[in-house]
């Protein structure tokens, strides 16, 4: 047997997670520094340079980074362009929102009833809460889906279980029928649209288009100022992002990541290697739905309100745009994209950006921001397919050589690549 190069043995690399991925330590260090910095500058525990509302914006941004991580895992690594992950995000928000609203209303109702001459019965309290919450949609009874809203542990379980189960069932049906590519994208979009339209109905049991509100007030902690609560949630969001990042790194490094990327690049080849491709896709789809649910559960208490418009298809499309701009197929790219674009979006749509008067026309950023975002999406897709994250490659000059038209074999005069394509 002619062994071409047996003498040059390859260098063995250590197989430790963090040693193999130095970017993880850099990322976690940046996140820790950022968290520390914001804590010191914020009103809650620090010197108060950063306003509470801005701390909330930053905390929300961290949650968006977390859901972008999930999107990158499912799209950038596994090749499933899901346009429905913000539905899972929204479900997580609704799940925690139900408890927040129930528990806080309960306190108010008990207080108001305590003035009555007779102590209120459990039924009276329950009716009072229902009337408070559902009066706005003309109902006064609890719908069945509020059955466990009184229990924080059960609603927290719902944050994980409901998105997870929905993704499991939906994914099982879709992947089993070998729905891929753009058809799967359309299917996921239909799912989020259907969910959003259902929730818009007044009798959906989740207050229709009013959504759930007052979520920023933690039940039983009414005395704690929002400046402190905002920092708590900011910390929780940073912790979730850090843990989520580690989880994603663990999933995509090693052999599992290798299989998942192989599925993205050539699904049928992976099948012929003996891997049950559908099981892998289902695993990734469900895992990312759970991550999205957790991110949503941290986001909406900071936003204070959730309504069905939040899970309209456009939200999931934005999510894909963030990941594309940040650079899919690399985790820090998703985080950078989500943070960069959503903060810019907050700046431009928040009315802080000064209008530009061109004399014949005034550019109002609130309207023109979407156009700018669309344009930058096109530009990134065309000219920088690796996104902002690709800049790191550029700096490290890790560009792989282009091999178009190279010789096919080691022998002189071998066929050239282009001819062999036929």
């Amino acid at each position, binding site marked *: *047997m002619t062994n071409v190069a047996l003498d040059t*043995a*390859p260098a063995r690399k250590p197989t430790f997670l963090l040693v193999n991925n130095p970017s993880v330590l850099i990322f976690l260090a940046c996140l820790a520094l950022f968290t520390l910095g914001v804590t010191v500058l914020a009103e809650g525990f620090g010197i108060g340079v950063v306003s509470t509302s801005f701390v909330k914006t930053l905390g929300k941004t961290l949650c968006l980074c977390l859901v972008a991580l999930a999107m990158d895992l499912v799209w950038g690594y596994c090749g499933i362009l899901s346009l429905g992950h913000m539905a899972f995000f929204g479900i997580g928000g609704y799940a925690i929102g139900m408890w927040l609203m129930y528990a806080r209303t309960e306190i108010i109702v008990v207080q108001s009833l305590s003035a009555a001459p007779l102590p209120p019965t459990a039924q009276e309290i329950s009716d009072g809460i229902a009337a408070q919450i559902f009066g706005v949609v003309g109902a006064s009874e609890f719908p069945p889906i509020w059955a466990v809203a009184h229990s924080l542990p059960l609603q927290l379980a719902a944050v994980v279980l409901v998105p997870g189960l929905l993704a499991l069932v939906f994914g099982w049906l879709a992947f089993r029928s070998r729905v891929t590519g753009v058809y799967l994208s359309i299917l996921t979009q239909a799912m989020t649209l259907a969910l959003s339209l259902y929730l818009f109905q007044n009798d959906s049991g989740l207050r229709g288009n009013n959504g759930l509100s007052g979520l920023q007030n933690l039940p039983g902690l009414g005395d704690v100022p929002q400046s402190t609560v905002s920092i708590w949630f900011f910390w929780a969001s940073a912790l979730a992002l850090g843990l989520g990042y580690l989880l994603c790194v663990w999933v995509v490094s*090693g052999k*599992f990541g290798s299989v998942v990327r192989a599925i993205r690049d050539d699904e049928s080849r992976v099948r012929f290697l003996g891997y049950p491709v559908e099981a*892998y896709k289902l695993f990734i789809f469900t895992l990312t739905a759970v991550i999205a649910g957790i991110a949503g559960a941290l986001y909406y208490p900071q936003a204070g309100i959730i309504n069905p418009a939040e899970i309209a298809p456009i939200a999931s499309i934005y999510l894909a745009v963030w990941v594309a701009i940040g650079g899919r197929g690399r985790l820090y790219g998703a985080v950078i994209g989500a943070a960069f674009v959503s903060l810019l979006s907050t700046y431009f749509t928040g009315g802080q950006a000064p209008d530009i008067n061109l004399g014949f026309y005034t550019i109002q950023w609130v309207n023109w921001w979407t156009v700018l975002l669309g344009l930058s999406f096109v530009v990134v897709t065309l000219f920088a397919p690796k996104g902002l994250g690709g800049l790191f490659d550029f700096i490290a000059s890790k560009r792989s050589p282009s091999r178009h038209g190279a010789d096919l074999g080691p*022998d002189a005069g071998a*066929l050239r690549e282009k001819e062999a394509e036929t």
Partner: protein
Amino acid sequence: MSTLLEVSGVSVSFDGFKAINNLTFQIGEAEMRAVIGPNGAGKTTFMDIVTGKTRPDEGRVLWGEKSQSLLSMSESQIAQAGVGRKFQRPTVFEDQTVAENLMLALKKKRSPFAVLNFRASRADQERVEELAGEIGLVAALARKAGELSHGQKQWLEIGMLLAQEPRLLLVDEPAAGMTPAEREHTTEILVEAAKTRAVVVVEHDMEFVRRLDCKVTVLHEGSVLAEGSIDHVTSNEAVIEVYLGR
């Protein structure tokens, strides 16, 4: 010699065109077989049926000692049962290194949770290096498969097939786009593999088939036209007419 794969009376048609017509084919446990035939004879469709990519309209495909039917199994189950396939165009995972490609193919548990907890042992690493040695890619282990030449990709794919440790190897035009030296090496690898397992080689190039020195099955219009040694089939009148005589 016991039969490893038995295909009997299989037919499949695409929009009325009969790609495979009442095909019957058998191969033993350690046997090399070359399948030749003009374009459109159904060679690739035959492989598609065995690997589960295409479901036949009728017929039986039986596998192994227990005569298990492959028709009710998915592609991945068939692959796990021991059928390995090499495609016409080299299909390696270009974004991953040669070592990663080989590690993916290495015969291990394939379920997601088993893979999630998978840690490459020293023995696994050594097996990968050994395979890389066989296909002459030791120096390229850390390189991305996309950077390899066409011939090297062909080899990498053969190496991945060997790593799967299949009992039946289906190889579609392995020598396409290779230089004479590379062809010779490919022949060696295939002949070596056929000592311990069944190997089916689909090939256009008669010179390459002659060098494999094995039983030849000639396909034409979806069924077997002739079977026997290369000299036997090349002297067959019908074969000369449909294939060689043109």
